[in-house]
């Protein structure tokens, strides 16, 4: 049972006192954070605020120095990335990290890895069960490619246009059937039309598939238009949290952004 929060909405993820220290640098400092189910939460802040570090800790690529993560009611602090992926945490990367010399379809199939049952022996013997599963997986992969609006299937991922690579990364993350999807600057490098299409897609993930989304984004128009709540990090600390409008008018946020002389 997911724990009930004060306001009554069940939480998919709770971060309690998360701290990450690299050498002498405190990258993230005792951050408390919760993501309600079926919500889009944006994580914003100036460059170097610790957003991606926080992401890496949620997904299990980094271990926090102290603090704990509870995902869907289970403590996942000690679990590795692949175990968290199995429980339902999926992500994309800021600098696209597709499997470049695999086809678009194979990338999505690789994403399904954890949802397929066939073992080594089964795949060698090609039992009917394995064959059926492979066919179903292929069907589902094609459906996901359609869902994100990608037409190329057999092209090597590295040869796809930039916007398509971003969409393919989302399809690959969806293939692992996440309950919580972490998107790290999904619209980076996209033109306004592509950005608008992607924003719409992210909204559909929540509305149609009931996925909770944690979003790092620099494009404020995207953040303001689709976020249910926004959290602001600066120098590793949470300085503000609330609805998009509340955060936009928070003097501490304005100061943090102006203080770095960069608004992204």
């Amino acid at each position, binding site marked *: 049972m997911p724990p009930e929060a004060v306001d009554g909405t069940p939480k998919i993820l709770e971060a309690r006192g998360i701290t990450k220290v690299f050498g002498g640098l405190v990258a993230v400092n005792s951050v408390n954070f919760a993501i309600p189910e079926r919500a889009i939460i944006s994580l914003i802040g100036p460059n170097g605020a610790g957003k991606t570090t926080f992401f890496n800790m949620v997904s299990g690529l980094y271990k926090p120095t102290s603090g704990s993560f509870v995902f869907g009611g289970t403590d996942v602090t000690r679990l590795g990335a692949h175990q968290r992926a199995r429980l339902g945490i999926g992500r994309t990367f800021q600098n696209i990290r597709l499997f470049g010399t695999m086809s678009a379809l194979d990338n999505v199939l*690789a994403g399904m*890895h954890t949802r397929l049952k066939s073992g080594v022996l089964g795949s060698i013997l090609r039992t009917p069960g394995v064959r059926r599963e492979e066919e179903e997986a292929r069907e589902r992969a094609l459906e996901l490619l359609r869902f994100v609006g990608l037409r190329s299937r057999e092209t090597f991922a590295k040869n796809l246009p930039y916007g398509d690579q971003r969409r393919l990364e989302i399809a690959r993350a969806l293939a692992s059937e996440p309950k919580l999807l972490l998107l790290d600057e999904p619209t980076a490098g996209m033109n306004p039309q592509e950005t608008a299409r992607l924003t719409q897609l992210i909204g559909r993930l929540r509305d149609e598939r009931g996925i909770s989304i944690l979003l790092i984004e620099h494009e404020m128009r995207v953040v303001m238009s689709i976020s249910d709540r926004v959290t602001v990090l600066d120098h590793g600390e949470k300085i503000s949290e609330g609805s998009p409008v509340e955060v936009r008018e928070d003097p501490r946020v304005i100061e943090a952004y102006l203080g770095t002389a960069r608004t992204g």
Partner: protein
Amino acid sequence: MATTQEAKTGGSTLEGLRASSWSSRIAVAIIAALTVLLLVQAVREPGQFTSQLLIGLTNGAIIALIALGYTLVYGIIELINFAHGDNFMIGSFVGVTVLSGTFLGLGFFAPIDASSGAALKVFGVLFALVVAMVVCGLVNVGIERVAYKPLRNSPRLAVLITAIGMSFILQNVGLAWKDASQIPFPSLVSNANILAGVTDEVTFRWKDLFVLAVTVPLLVALSYFIRSTKQGKAMRAVAQDKEAAAMMGINVNRTISVAFLLGGILAGASGVMFGLFNGTTVFDVGLRQGLFAFTAAVLGGIGNLTGAVVGGILIGIIGSMTDQYIGVRWTDIVIFTVLILVLVFRPRGLLGDRSAVQGGGGE
């Protein structure tokens, strides 16, 4: 640095050669002269030439199976597993032990040798192959667990030195197990020429056929495994990006173990075939065969599975041609000269590195 290197080697071989000057012209001249020499021989004595080509193919198949082990491991964790050749030696030792029927002083069954019945011979060979494949696969996985995994995040040189250390350990295990002398293999596969009734010119022996009959199915199975199965896809994914693969729920450590397992299985098969083919094995056989296979892997483009097979066959043929037309004592010199030439002029190998473990054939 790296980018200019890539720019140079990225183009065709000829472009790469043109870029550098005198040394490259000499290399081209030598290769051209050797090719002409071979063509002359091919025309003068086509039968003998074809026989040598076939011997080269068989030797190449044995080398290719070892080379695949180097390339699988390199493709996934960028480590040159120097213990791999010695694991091949262990494979041949396991094979000869199984055929002797005696292990640890306990006689399990009568030795299977040339005097055994045909059915028993076939069974013996298959049994020896399977046992050696299993043992070598597990030895390889064990080596990775004990010696390489703890160093996963250390500088690469540390792991490389450990691999060399592992190589010495295996060699000395072999030495302690069966002493330093040559160990005879029973001659279970016939030396007779299959083509005896057809032509006297070309020699293709039953044991040549045996090697190809074992190698080809293994290659097909490996290719299918990597290309089409869930674990194969996981392996390609891990080879390209370990963190992204972990985010797909792929257990990276387990996938690396599978790569070592496959490499070991192939080395085991190769070890038994080598013993049956040459009739003998010895504790340090892994050093020479391992270096040949490493050369083959580099020649084909280390990390590239197709490249390892192509490289293995090329090295086999270069070796057999040198044996015949230049002299056996020159063979090692010629083969390692090839290694140096490849490293100088085309460091990424003939087919380019890494691409096949990762997916497509070339770039």
